[in-house]
């Protein structure tokens, strides 16, 4: 490899510092005590999400998302947030509805996969109100991973030769061993990571069933972590199957008990997505006036996420969505449980 490697310049803004020493200093002072972190979503958001923070939303847009936290960020009028637009679909739609963010690292935004494009999210992104830097699903996942590893970047073999590279903040480097041309993607340390899980104890030890998407790393690179959980369990329950543990307690700041917390998204092994309600979002968004009333009804005008569930058919609808869920544990369909209280 004698060919001179040209330096490919990217012009995107880097919205967060990849400095590993800063991150280590932060993590050094973070308490390790196994204390009770159970609190309401409202308290978690007011204590741990501040205007201007950089947010990473776990799950995959409309699958295993922390909907209650996203709604609460809108309800509390969080502003000027940075957002990792990684696999961002319904989660992006919610935060765009609240105009909560003003800068976005983009891998996948605005769309809801087969359901089409969100009209309101499109208007928001086309308005010029949001600063944008382009990435891809792999590079944002690897940016989380670099941060989780405690290194300032990871070398990759993507983005090269494209406008995605040009509008990113990645840099071209040469491998010190082989001379191979590589693209370095910088560590991403979000201020807040929000993750919805199947079960957690009050200390933050938590587990998910099924694919983990990028949450293993979101749960390590984020400075503060809010966990919402379908079920609260004893720590002994976690210890029975430790391979399933996503994040151990000392990384977690808040644990919120939110049954059906991924609604209207899918929660693997629990309930399927509410496609009818997601279609209502898409329809309402077409007219800004209609959408304003829609958001008043479903977010600003109600106290919390449990009221949102009630507005959408409550336990009866949730039971239907459980029936629609194709994944079953040990061949036995999980039976809908009444309540949702602690």
């Amino acid at each position, binding site marked *: 490899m004698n060919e001179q490697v040209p330096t490919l310049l990217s012009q995107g803004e880097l919205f967060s510092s990849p400095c590993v020493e800063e991150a280590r200093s932060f993590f050094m002072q973070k308490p390790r005590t196994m204390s009770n972190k159970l609190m309401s979503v409202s308290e978690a958001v007011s204590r741990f999400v501040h205007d201007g923070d950089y947010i990473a939303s776990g799950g995959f847009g409309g699958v295993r998302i922390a909907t209650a936290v996203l709604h609460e960020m809108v309800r509390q009028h969080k502003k000027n947030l940075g957002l990792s637009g990684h*696999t961002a679909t319904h989660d992006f739609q919610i935060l765009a509805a609240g105009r909560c963010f003003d800068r976005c690292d983009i891998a996948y935004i605005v769309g809801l996969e087969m359901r089409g494009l969100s009209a309101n999210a499109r208007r928001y992104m086309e308005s010029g109100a949001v600063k944008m830097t382009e990435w891809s699903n792999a590079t944002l*996942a690897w940016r989380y991973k670099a941060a989780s590893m405690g290194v300032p970047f990871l070398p990759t073999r993507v983005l090269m030769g494209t*406008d995605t590279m040009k509008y990113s903040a990645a840099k071209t480097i040469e491998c010190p061993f082989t001379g191979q041309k590589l693209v370095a993607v910088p560590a991403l340390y979000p201020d807040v990571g929000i993750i919805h899980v199947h079960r957690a104890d009050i200390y933050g030890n938590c587990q998910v069933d*099924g694919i983990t998407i990028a949450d293993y790393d979101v749960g390590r690179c984020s400075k503060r972590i809010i966990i919402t959980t379908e079920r609260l369990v004893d720590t002994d329950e976690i210890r029975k199957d430790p391979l399933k543990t996503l994040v151990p307690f000392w990384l977690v700041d808040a644990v919120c008990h939110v049954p059906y917390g991924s609604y209207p998204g899918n929660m693997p092994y629990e309930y399927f997505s509410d496609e009818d309600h997601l279609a209502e979002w898409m329809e309402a968004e077409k007219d800004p006036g209609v959408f304003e009333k829609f958001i008043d009804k479903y977010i600003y005008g109600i106290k919390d996420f449990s009221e949102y569930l009630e507005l959408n058919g409550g336990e009866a609808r949730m039971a239907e969505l459980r029936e629609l869920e194709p*994944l079953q544990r040990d061949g036995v369909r999980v039976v809908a449980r009444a309540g949702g209280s602690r």
Partner: protein
Amino acid sequence: MKLNNPRYNLMELMVCVASRQLEDGKTAVIGTGMPLSAAMLAQKMASPNLVILFEAGGVAPKLERLPISVADSNTQTGGLLHTSMDVIFEACQRGTIDYTFLGGAQIDMYGNINSSMIGTDYNHPKVRLPGSGGANDLASLCWKTLIITPHDKRRFTNKLDFLTSPGYLTGPGARERAGLPAGSGPYKVISTLALMGYDPETKRMRVESLHSGVTKEEVIENTSFEMFFVDPLPETPEPTDQELRVLREEVDPLGLVIGKSGQ
């Protein structure tokens, strides 16, 4: 786009033709919609041992229902492995994934794709589209990239508004010069009019077969760049009754993909 055959619609035609491009015993990372319908159909027809992976972490599921998200429960039913996104893309980067199958808003003569924005000013797009998602990664790293898209002048464009994901970039050797993995790149394009591949020397897109009833002129009229044609130029075999039955009854009984117009 006119279609004279009452046996199938344009979506069914594209999905059936696309499904035949995926060889048995290979690995493929697939996006939702038409690409996934094609991969599911391939598994139920000539390629039962095609391994389907999803970028969100689902590996080799027994696909029972057509997933609507690359992460939903239907990508995980009966799976061999439930893992994470980094693991899937690292499998691609390591060279173990044969195919990726994608869509896109615009495609050019070298198979470069735009799925990011329409317009001339990046900061003020006329239409903001989703962005790369996993497309840049998959088109960079998988051995063979297949694209499925309706055929019109706007989509088959001379100049992309934004080059999201790499095809052959500016021509022969450009991928390697850019640093992309040697020997990887665009493979097939399936449209409403034709099945296309790439000239091995020039890396330019060329029609390899015309769908039944379609003329060369029709392809030229609906393509903004200069399209090439293999000679002699065969006709694409039409969807068989069995393909159509399996597609309608087993792959997409709700018509989520094949119920759309194809435009």
